[in-house]
């Protein structure tokens, strides 16, 4: 949870899934796209312009940064691509969003339960 008074940018859906993908491990663009497709069960497909546009935006907001070189474990093919890494601010923003979602989830669950009881 973010500390009180700390500024945390609100997170949109694209941002959320990209941060979520990078929270697991560093990835390059194409891998983020694949991962998000998987995470959302094929519901959110990040097309090239939106993907890199959003990565650019996240970078601007200092929620992620680009790695200077690919990690050692990367294969030949992916080694030539640019890899991205989630920053501490990125993790905080993601955590805040998760907390918000949790709160919403609890309220929603309670309301649904009450709705079905009446």
């Amino acid at each position, binding site marked *: 949870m973010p500390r009180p008074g700390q500024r945390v940018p609100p997170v949109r859906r694209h941002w959320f899934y990209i941060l979520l993908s990078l929270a697991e491990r560093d990835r390059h663009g194409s891998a983020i796209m694949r991962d998000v497709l998987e995470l959302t069960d094929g519901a959110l497909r990040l*097309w*090239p312009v*939106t993907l890199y*546009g959003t990565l650019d935006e996240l970078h601007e907001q200092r929620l992620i940064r680009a790695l200077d070189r690919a990690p050692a474990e990367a294969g030949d093919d992916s080694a030539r*691509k640019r890899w991205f890494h989630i920053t501490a601010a990125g993790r905080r923003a993601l955590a805040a969003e998760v907390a918000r979602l949790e709160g919403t989830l609890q309220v929603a669950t309670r309301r649904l339960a009450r709705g079905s009881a009446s």
Partner: protein
Amino acid sequence: MSLTLRAFRLALRVLPADLRAAHGAEMEALLVDELARARRPIERVSVRLGAFADLARRVPYEHWRRRGRPTLQPRVNRMPSVFADLRFALRASTRQPAATALVIATLALAVAANTAVFALVDAVFFRSLPYPHASRLVDLNEQAPKWNLEFVGITYYDFDQWQKNSRVFEGMAVWDGSAVNISDGTTATRVDGQMVSYDMARVLGITPVLGRTFTKDEHALHGARVVMLGYGMWQSRFAGAHDVIGKTLRIDSRPFTIVGVLPANVTLTEPTGFWLPLQLDAANERGNYSYEGIARLKPGVTIAQARNDLLRVQAPIWRQFDSTHTVSPRIMPLRDRFVADYRTVGAALGAGVVLVLIIACADIAGAMLARSIFRRREMGIRVALGASGWRVTRQLLTEALVLAAAAGVIGTVVGRLGIGLLTSGISDIPPWLHLGIDARAIAFSVLIVAATALVFGLAPALQFRRQDLTGSLVGGTRTSGSLPERRMLNALVVLEIALAAVLLASGGLLVRAYANLRDVDPGFRPDGVASFRLSVPDAKYKDGRDKRRFYETLIARIGRIPGVAHAGAVTCAPFSCHWGSFYQAEGTAPASTNAEDPVVLTRIASSDYFAAMGIKLLHGRFFGPNEGTPDGPRPAVINDLLAKRLWPTVDDPVGRRFTFRGDTSARDWMTVVGVVKDARHYGLTQPMRPGMYMSLTSIDSAHTFDRFAVVAQTTGDAASLFPALRAAVHELDPELPLFGVTTMQAALAQSMASRRAIALWLASFAAIALTLAVGGIYAVLSYVVGRRRHEIGIRMALGAQRGQVLGLVVRQGLRLVAIGLLLGVPAAFLASRALASLLVGVSGSDPLTYVGVIVVLTATGVAAALIPARRAAGVEPKIALGEGS
């Protein structure tokens, strides 16, 4: 490289450069990857579509994002916020109903004036005549500068030559206004129409709604008696019956066969009740300049080319009859000929209403600006809550638009009524000048409304954007305007005063011109004079002698009507017609063809006409009863201008003789018995020409005058004579309709009606401008005083007197008035030059008017400043200081 990739690379160029540089290659690579992954063709298609659609969707956002307004929502849902703006605007405007009503009323007034005047300006300047390809229609006429005539009329002989030999015209026709008596046996009515050459319908491009047009045979001398009915007459007299073709109509006591019905929109300058064929023999028509010409140019022919062609065709006529080219053809677009008289009027009124509109805009912009300064806090809160500057701007614009739209609707409706007012004042508007609210006028109103909303909505909005609104939250309730704001308010007031000065000066000059006009001596005494016109048909009254006898009997009868002091008749009463001829004095050679020889207005009058009209005698006497016979002697009364012209060195030309130019046979010499000063014949603003009167008793059988104006003078109310006058004519000949029944007072007023209307309209624009300017000064000073309460409180606490505080505020108001006048008076001076043709009898630099403008504006400026000034002087120092802390 695949075609898809190449296309994608090209498409990526629409992205912001930095994004393309940073990630362009990766985007392409990703697309290549995805395409490689897709196995089935359908998948590859969907990848392609998806990638391009994504690009299209994202591009606007990427550009927008880079304009320094990072936002969390790439796609703004616009419609709901527009409704929110509207709702907010309605709420805001109902919160201050009085202020809102004032703004709407101000603007509605301006829109109404603009809509009404637009109809006139549109008709005069832009709308084409109601004929197909009307831009190719031209007016033909002849001019004779040596005779002092701009439009002489065309002789049928010249027309015939032009028609036969010119090459640039599709068709050419002449016409002459004509009025006839149409009778059904018991009563008769007077109907206006035209005599036309047979080609007229083809030249105008019209086809009859019923029957046919005239044939060439009917056009010849002594051709068949046929008539085409005007649409209006067909409706009113025959109830639009389709079996009128072939029926007979009694015109001037002769039967005519109806051959066709004209469509509704056909009008030359006069109403068209009928068309009759002009039945003339060109060879005998060389001296009679009676006809107006209309021609249709071949496509692509210019006026200049047509003029050259006419001059070429005129050359043989000049060689044969007119070696000095005294009379030459003139050609102009038909429209220009018809609307020329209304141009200055239209332009003056148009400029006037636009100024009113600008002043109204400035006024409202000022009011909105002053109000917005008090609303700074509200706007600050909205910005703090996340509204963007654009959002606040849009809301202010929406508010302005809501007010403007309300004003637009009201203004357009009022403007429709205004057209009636406008045209009732301006006389003789040609019937084809369609004046009304149509799609164009409504489009114009919408345009005005949008433009004004932009002007007075944007002014405060720009101010908002220029400053830090969040600062206003810290400032609490203090509503001190910033320097640029005060400057803008001041500039608006200065603009209003400058424009008001222009309108006041123009209105003032026109009113003075009109007032001068009323003082112009018309050359007769209009009080108690009733007049009407008659036309006696050739069929019943065979020659001049018969007609003379009829008129003499009628005048004698009218003279016996109780209450009638004098009765007389004249061929052309003042402000009605013109018939011109040329004369030479005894003992002088006829004017050489090269010399100036202004045309002389020639009238025939009965002996008592002069007494009935109260015409002023300078020398000699009027005609005695039965003075002069066809065989001589032939007395003449001439006006002072003709006396000067014929005998420049003689003071009193009574007893001298003169005759028609070039006709020195003993019979026609006329002897001057009196000299009169008939000052105005062609209208009070038009210069008089040399003129002369022949005695009615000297008319012989060869004279062809059939139309007279009969006047009767009474000591009582002239209009009360009308029934007795009608009865007198009816007793003599029940088939003769009276027309042009009026009093000379009314005729005089009618001749000034247009001037009066223009003066009145511009004066009312000036009054509106003045009211608005006063409102503007008041609003700004109220605001300034409100803002300076604290400072004034301190001054008063330090011992400033009430008078000093009053002076402080009034001085501030006067400074604005002074700057406004410095700009406005020179502008007014320039504007008066454009009005020159309307300013008869008053100089465009008339000092009295300008001094008046300065005095009026200064006085109203002081008055407008006094209320806020008194409020300031009434400030309790303690309270004002308490507020400020």
